[in-house]
């Protein structure tokens, strides 16, 4: 159970709590506070995966978000998650991690043969190889690429976890709790600002946890702890760890990903797994720090090669040695701190510094401690397949392109530092055009675009003193503008080591006749030669080079590779880096789970469910529901073993023969009031509205300004200046906005108010020849005769003690009424109707029967009013007034709308009187004609006519009524059906409309 690479004392882990886990089936343990990576390294395990293209052995390279290699399939707390960054994921009891992209195992991977075939996998390999023959694409190439590509395996289980969204606002959002972030948050908090401080890692402090510095005589770590505990005690400050701000959107909206409970062994039922924060910040401090970049050399992807700062972090935070015989390969001073840390832990490093012999505070200290420093040196190639065993190193000539001396040194790890790259992702996402800073050979934010202020290393300041100063100043100034309070803060005394200048050296040359792979992008296996090929083949724009080689396109977004790639391109092209430019930074900064994006909007919570007041009755009586927008409507009421077809036929037939009731609550209802209401309706509808008497309903048709039918429905004049409009269920919201548009913008002079009353009224339709008899029983004191309540009549009456509205309107084409009561009385009304209706053979009917009834009557609905038809296309030109103006009238004169052959509504019946015609079928003259077969129209609605006992459809067809009597084919390739049909009138039942008036 010993951990060979764990130090005895160092680190911030909790050595009192052991955590057991497995890696590729092997039982191991780590400590609370470990990541998967630190625990594996402590156990001496470095080989964790295989690379994307060549299946080369890969190990850890970084210690956090910068990690390009160590992506594992991880099972924990009942999940299986692919592509988990081993350097970020905290160890939890029972966690099980496995390597990805290798078969049969990470130690012996068949795919590694690609490594020996690498001459066949150059840049653009996929584009070049999988081009021809075309027929190979689906069956051979695509499955092959799919199998070869990708890393982990997504779970096919339903995600049982809970994810949340949270909306927050603040005066100042600080992204990152390193020295500059802490200083900014502290200064702003002291000014009374509402501050959110977000830290991606579990521990606050950033580089303060690993750098050998002191602030006001406290160690960096202690100072960070002091500031954090003070911030936590302030009511105006929210401090969040394990929370990454990953996107900067318009108008200072930032989005943060919080890992709430992945690190917990036990949690309460309602604790979410992860939480997405939408934060609207007045000001934003981007204190995201910087990421070390490597120097490129041969076989630089061998396990055991680390970024030098990562090696230091493993020692200082996790108490873990990445090796016991380290080579430090650097072009700058910061790697000396790693060397000194090794030395402190009794490990003897060798430093290879690409710079010529010189002196600086850190170099002198290393020298005084007796560390072996070799100037003008670098690693040419790492030896070892699954782990570094030795390195071929070279002493560079003055030209830095050839070698004075080459030798081999033994080592078990190489810690490389090629200087620092500010993390400018969020700044760039905010719209900030970045600028190239020659002094640090990297991009930093330019002029502010939104309210983003970059401080510290993210802004290219690499000294603690400067970072703190900028942090305090910006935090104080930005917040003072908002709170109008300014608390003076004295800037603390800082003790840090001064760095000398770095060397502009990014890629190790190769001796003659040696050609090992030199990787620029580890995650996508992009090497120096790939970039050279892309440029040789003529790619010039950095965006094209990126796409052709896939440089920087992996999940790590090229955090360690982009700048080295740019340097290479600029060297070969003989351009300076700013001329080459940089590729676009896009959110999210690191991969986030789909569950977090979705949040609580899953299953029942995906959208609100609208239920009518009678819903429970429908449920109890075996209704099968259908979604109509957010509404649940009974589609049919199942009796015994009935199918949908049988039930809807029974229900529709019963309406034609007896009486049926239908829940029509979902229809849109709009109350229209005001002295100009009639004038307004007259402009909105195509037909005349000025003379509608009080107590009468009228069918109305409304158009869009382009002449296309928008919606239809009845509107009833309740009193002098009060109308009740109904709309279709689907268009209710659009119609209301449409009316508001005209009242508020176009005709504000009209004194009219509109308001939705859809939710206020429950509605039931009573339809069928016996509906009047039933109505007279429902209203024993009311005269419901044809004279007293004629077609399109309206009455208000008492319904067993509750006020109600009676409209004599019909969608089914039968004698019919619609009763509205206040929603609270809906169930009462419905149950009373069921009770009273028994003696008349009343049955409830659903939307399927409703459709059947309207289709055989030739009443148009959504499928006909599909956003392409004008009134004359659907035989409603009788409703279009020639005398008055209305919305869309001027468009009806358009030439194309008045062509005789225009597609118009007709009816269709199958010649065999048996075959149902699928909706959506195309109407063609010859079913066997060569493709493309000229299409004459399409089937819009189909039903089984209960009146005539055969199928019947409505269709929108070229030449419309002129085609009546002719025969065609209705062809549905989707259903693989072709049915011979005859064109008839769209009014199949009761064409004169006698029944509704009876």
């Amino acid at each position: 159970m010993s951990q060979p690479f764990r130090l005895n004392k160092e680190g911030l882990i909790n050595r009192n709590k052991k955590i057991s886990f497995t890696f590729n089936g092997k039982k191991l343990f780590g400590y609370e506070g470990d990541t998967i990576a630190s625990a594996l390294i402590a156990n001496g395990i470095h080989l964790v995966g295989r690379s994307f293209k060549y299946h080369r052995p890969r190990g850890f390279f970084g210690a956090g978000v910068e990690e390009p290699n160590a992506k594992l399939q991880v099972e924990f707390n009942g999940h299986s998650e692919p592509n988990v960054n081993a350097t970020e994921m905290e160890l939890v009891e029972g966690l099980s991690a496995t390597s990805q992209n290798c078969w049969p195992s990470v130690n012996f991977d068949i795919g590694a043969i690609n490594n020996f075939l690498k001459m066949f996998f150059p840049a653009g390999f996929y584009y070049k190889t999988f081009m021809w023959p075309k027929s190979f694409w689906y069956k051979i190439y695509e499955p092959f690429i799919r199998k070869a590509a990708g890393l982990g395996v997504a779970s096919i289980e339903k995600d049982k976890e809970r994810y949340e969204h949270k909306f927050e606002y603040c005066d100042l959002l600080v992204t990152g709790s390193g020295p500059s972030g802490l200083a900014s948050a502290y200064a702003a908090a002291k000014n009374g600002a509402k501050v959110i401080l977000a830290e991606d890692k579990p521990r606050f402090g950033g580089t303060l946890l690993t750098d050998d510095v002191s602030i006001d005589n406290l160690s960096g770590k202690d100072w960070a702890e002091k500031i954090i505990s003070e911030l936590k005690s302030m009511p105006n400050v929210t401090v969040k760890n394990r929370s990454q701000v990953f996107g900067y959107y318009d108008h200072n909206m930032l989005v943060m990903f919080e890992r709430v409970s992945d690190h917990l062994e036990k949690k309460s039922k309602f604790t979410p797994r992860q939480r997405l924060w939408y934060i609207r910040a007045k000001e934003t401090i981007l204190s995201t720090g910087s990421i070390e970049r490597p120097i490129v050399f041969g076989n630089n992807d061998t396990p055991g090669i680390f970024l030098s700062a990562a090696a230091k972090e493993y020692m200082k935070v996790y108490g873990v040695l990445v090796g016991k015989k380290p080579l430090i390969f650097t072009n700058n001073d910061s790697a000396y701190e790693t060397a000194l840390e090794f030395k402190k832990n009794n490990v003897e490093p060798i430093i290879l510094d690409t710079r010529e012999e010189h002196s600086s505070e850190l170099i002198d200290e290393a020298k005084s401690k007796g560390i072996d420093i070799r100037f003008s040196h670098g690693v040419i190639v790492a030896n070892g397949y699954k782990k570094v065993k030795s390195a071929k190193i070279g002493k560079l000539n003055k030209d830095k392109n050839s070698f004075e001396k080459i030798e081999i040194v033994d080592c078990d790890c190489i810690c490389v530092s090629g200087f620092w790259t500010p993390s400018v992702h969020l700044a760039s996402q905010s719209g900030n055009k970045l600028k190239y800073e020659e002094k640090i050979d990297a991009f930093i934010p330019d002029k502010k675009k939104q309210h983003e202020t970059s401080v510290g290393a993210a802004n290219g300041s690499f000294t603690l003193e400067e970072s703190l100063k900028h942090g305090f100043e910006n935090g104080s100034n930005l917040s003072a503008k908002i709170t109008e309070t300014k608390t003076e803060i004295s800037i603390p005394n800082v003790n840090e080591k001064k760095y000398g200048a770095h060397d502009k050296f990014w890629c190790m040359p190769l001796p003659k006749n040696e050609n090992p792979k030199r990787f620029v992008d580890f995650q996508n296996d992009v090497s120096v030669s790939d970039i050279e090929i892309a440029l040789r083949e003529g790619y010039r724009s950095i965006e094209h080079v990126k796409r052709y080689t896939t440089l920087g396109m992996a999940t790590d977004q090229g955090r360690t590779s982009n700048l080295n790639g740019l340097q290479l391109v600029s060297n070969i092209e003989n351009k300076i880096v700013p001329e080459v430019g940089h590729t676009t930074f896009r959110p999210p900064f690191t991969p986030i789970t789909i569950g977090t994006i979705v949040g609580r909007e899953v299953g029942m919570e995906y959208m609100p469910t609208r239920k009518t007041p009678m819903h429970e009755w429908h449920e109890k009586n075996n209704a099968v529901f259908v979604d109509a927008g957010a509404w649940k409507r009974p589609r049919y009421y199942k009796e015994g073993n009935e199918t949908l077809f049988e039930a809807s036929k029974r229900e529709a037939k019963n309406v034609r023969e007896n009486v049926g009731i239908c829940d029509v609550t979902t229809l849109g209802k709009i109350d229209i009031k005001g002295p100009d209401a009639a004038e307004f309706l007259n402009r909105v509808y195509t037909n005349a509205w000025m003379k509608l008497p009080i107590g009468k309903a009228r069918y109305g048709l409304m158009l869009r300004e382009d002449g296309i039918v928008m919606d239809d429905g009845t509107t009833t004049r309740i009193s002098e200046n009060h109308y009740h409009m109904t709309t279709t269920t689907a268009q209710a919201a659009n119609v209301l906005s449409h009316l508001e548009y005209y009242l508020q913008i176009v005709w504000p002079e009209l004194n009219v108010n509109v308001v939705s009353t859809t939710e206020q009224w429950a509605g039931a339709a009573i339809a069928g020849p016996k509906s009047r008899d039933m109505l007279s029983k429902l209203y024993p004191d009311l005269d419901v005769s044809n004279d007293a309540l004629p077609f399109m009549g309206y009455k208000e009456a008492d319904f067993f003690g509750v006020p109600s509205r009676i409209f004599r309107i019909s969608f089914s084409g039968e004698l019919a009424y619609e009763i509205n009561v206040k929603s609270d009385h809906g169930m009462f009304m419905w149950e009373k109707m069921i009770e009273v209706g028994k003696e008349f053979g009343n049955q409830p009917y659903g939307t399927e029967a409703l459709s059947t009834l309207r289709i055989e009557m030739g009443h148009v609905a959504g499928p006909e009013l599909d956003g392409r038809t004008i009134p004359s296309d659907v035989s409603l030109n009788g409703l279009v007034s020639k005398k008055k103006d209305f919305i869309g009238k001027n468009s009806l004169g358009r030439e194309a709308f008045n062509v005789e052959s225009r597609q118009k509504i007709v009816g269709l019946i199958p010649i065999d009187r048996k075959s149902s015609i699928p909706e959506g079928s195309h109407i063609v003259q010859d079913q066997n004609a060569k493709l493309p077969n000229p299409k004459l129209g399409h089937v819009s609605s189909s039903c089984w006519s209960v009146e005539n006992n055969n199928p019947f459809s409505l269709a929108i067809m070229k030449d419309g009524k002129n085609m009546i009597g002719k025969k065609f084919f209705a062809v549905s390739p989707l259903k693989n059906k072709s049915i011979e049909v005859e064109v008839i009138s769209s009014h199949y039942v009761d064409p004169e409309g006698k029944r509704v008036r009876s």
Partner: protein
Amino acid sequence: MLYIKCPYCGLRAQKEFSYGGDATVKRPNINEEVSSEDWDNFVYMRKSPRGKHIELWQHIAGCRQWIKVQRDTATHEIFQTAKVTEEIR
């Protein structure tokens, strides 16, 4: 997500609004003769400027008022919002 200042309700998230197109288009008067050209221009022809654009939004999940918003179509910067009865210059 945009942050839109409703002249009636104050600053609200874009989620509460729906977009309504170019606010400078004027509908020909009702009951007045209009040439085909003018009508077609009103119904179909819209400029698609890169830069400042005065547009309509409706605060559908709020006060339900239609409002004018002057927005930069490239940067999404919002310069001004106003009631529909007010002018944006």
